[in-house]
């Protein structure tokens, strides 16, 4: 039929005739496009996961920490620190925890040596800590007013510690704090904004004072601010807590760290993109190389084509089209591969898959461009070949 159709058929047959060679030179565009698609897809998916997490956790949580003042091993905040910060008009809620230093928690009797060497941090916490943190319990309940009023020996485990203790959901479990038995009433879900809470055990302030013999003064405050006032509120917190006293207070907004993490991913994405570009370029050189050798190997074919009436430009176009097909196919396979990688990793990591479908054709186009440019020299070489020299021996 039309000449271009003939050309497509001839180029396709040429590629199919050397399947291994064709697959080898396709590797460049395949790896390049797969790298770029998966680089962008993975970082975007990870970022999507982070952003989803941020949206869920909120960006308005402030953590205030008692600063270490001289001579104090365990700097504390005033006992009424929560009330003090709640006086700030932009604070919507606040909760405090106290580090109970010197309290040894044992999951079972006789495990003391290990747990003295690696003590599990025990914290005293108020009723509203989970609600301020915006996390729920995976299991059981949080400490409540009855624990205090009925003087119950109740403890809630952080998610990490529950795993470490081998705590089974719903299990009736007794652990020892400073030799006293405490019943596990619940497990707090992991707190992405403050992972130190995952490895802590929580008791009521009453238990801290009366059962474990500590002063129960808070060390950290978890504060929620009105949306959009987080930074300003964080600045106001030290003054509000201090009220002219000598207490040093430092504040941080943990969601900032997550934001920074997504920025770090951006850098990773750029590195991966660069690697993809590099793969494409090296792949392009590979194509140019192999096609050049191929032109020499196929000089008889070129000669005979010229002899039967194919023009120089037709022969050149035939070889250029072979490169073009390598680029198209390589790009296509690479894109599919990259998308599969993103889906696979996202599924494993529990991310929401984000694929920049709008960008995929750009990478494929780039692979195509590289392949065509790589095929240019071999094609010109093929077109310029003198048929008589290749056809006649002697």
């Amino acid at each position: 039929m039309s000449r271009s159709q003939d050309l497509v058929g001839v180029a396709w047959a040429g590629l199919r005739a050397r399947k291994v060679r064709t697959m080898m030179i396709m590797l460049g565009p395949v790896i390049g496009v797969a790298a770029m698609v998966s680089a962008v897809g993975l970082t975007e998916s990870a970022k999507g996961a982070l952003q989803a997490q941020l949206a869920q956790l909120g960006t308005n949580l402030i953590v205030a920490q008692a600063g270490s003042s001289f001579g104090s091993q365990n700097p504390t905040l005033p006992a009424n620190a929560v009330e003090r910060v709640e006086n700030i008009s932009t604070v919507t809620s606040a909760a405090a925890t106290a580090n109970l230093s010197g309290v040894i928690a044992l999951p079972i009797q006789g495990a003391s040596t290990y747990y003295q060497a690696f003590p599990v941090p025990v914290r005293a916490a108020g009723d509203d800590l989970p609600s301020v943190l915006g996390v729920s319990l995976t299991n059981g309940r949080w400490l409540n007013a009855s624990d205090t009023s009925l003087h119950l020996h109740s403890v809630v485990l952080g998610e990490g510690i529950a795993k470490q203790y081998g705590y089974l959901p719903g299990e009736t479990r007794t652990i020892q704090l400073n030799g006293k038995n405490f019943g596990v009433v619940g497990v707090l879900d992991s707190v992405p904004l403050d992972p130190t809470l995952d490895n802590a055990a929580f008791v009521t302030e009453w238990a801290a004072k009366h059962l474990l013999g500590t002063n129960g003064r808070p060390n950290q405050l978890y504060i929620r601010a009105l949306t959009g006032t987080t930074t300003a509120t964080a600045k106001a917190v030290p003054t509000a807590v201090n009220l002219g006293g000598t207490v040093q207070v430092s504040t941080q907004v943990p969601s900032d760290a997550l934001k920074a993490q997504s920025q770090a991913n951006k850098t990773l994405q750029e590195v991966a993109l660069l690697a993809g570009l590099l793969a494409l370029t090296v792949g392009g050189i590979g194509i140019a190389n192999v096609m050049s050798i191929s032109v020499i190997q196929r000089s008889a074919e070129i000669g005979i084509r010229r002899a039967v009436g194919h023009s120089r430009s037709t022969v050149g176009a035939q070889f250029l089209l072979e490169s073009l097909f390598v680029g198209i196919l390589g790009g296509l396979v690479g894109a599919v591969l990259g998308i599969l990688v993103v889906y696979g990793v996202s599924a494993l990591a529990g991310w929401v898959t984000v694929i920049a479908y709008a960008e995929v054709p750009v990478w494929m186009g780039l692979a195509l461009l590289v392949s065509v440019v790589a095929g240019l020299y071999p094609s010109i070489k093929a077109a310029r070949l003198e048929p008589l020299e290749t056809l006649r021996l002697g």
Partner: protein
Amino acid sequence: MTAPLLEVTAPPLLELETVSRVYGEEVEVYALREVSLQILPGELMSIVGPSGSGKSTMLGLLGILDHPTSGTVRVAGQDVSGLDDATRSRVRGDAIGFVFQQFHLIPHLTALGNVETALLYRDIRPKDRRERAYAALDRLGLGQRAGHRPVQMSGGEQQRVALARAIVTEPLMVLADEPTGALDSANAAHVLEIFEGLQSPERAVVMVTHDLTVADTARRKVSMRDGRIVADERRGLPGPGGGR
């Protein structure tokens, strides 16, 4: 077969007029020196000569694969020296069918595919192209082998595929370069027989060879030496044809 005498008056299919071909720039080497030759329809002609006599150059010029340094090459009366590559390629494809010593079949194509190669880029429907190619193969007794690749065929069969490729375009002239050089005597005899069959009142068959026994099978024998035509004999007819 028509007697050659009747065709002398027909216009030449292909004509070289005082053609020279010089290789090299600093040191000029004359491969052909002012050669004139007319190839007429219906001729079965051989061009014979030892190595270095200019046969190879002659093949390139007759096949419009090469440009003369001076002189004129005409195909069916048309001067082809001024044509661009695409047009020259078209004229070559239409007017000339090549057969080579090494067959030069494209290894990854079947016999049919190889013959079809000569019909590509001519706006022929694939179905028609296949039919024509098959007919050409069938004419040379290779209908059964249409789906085979060159490696699956004997030398004689491969050369017949090459012949089918040469004639599938119905060319004015079949130009063969040592067509029997790579064949044993039985196959060579068979191929030469076919050559005689290919020749028709409209078509010429030209064999370029160094083999005198092959050359002698042709009714017109042009002998070359040192880039010149030294003899142009017609069997049964004395004197030069279009040579000098």
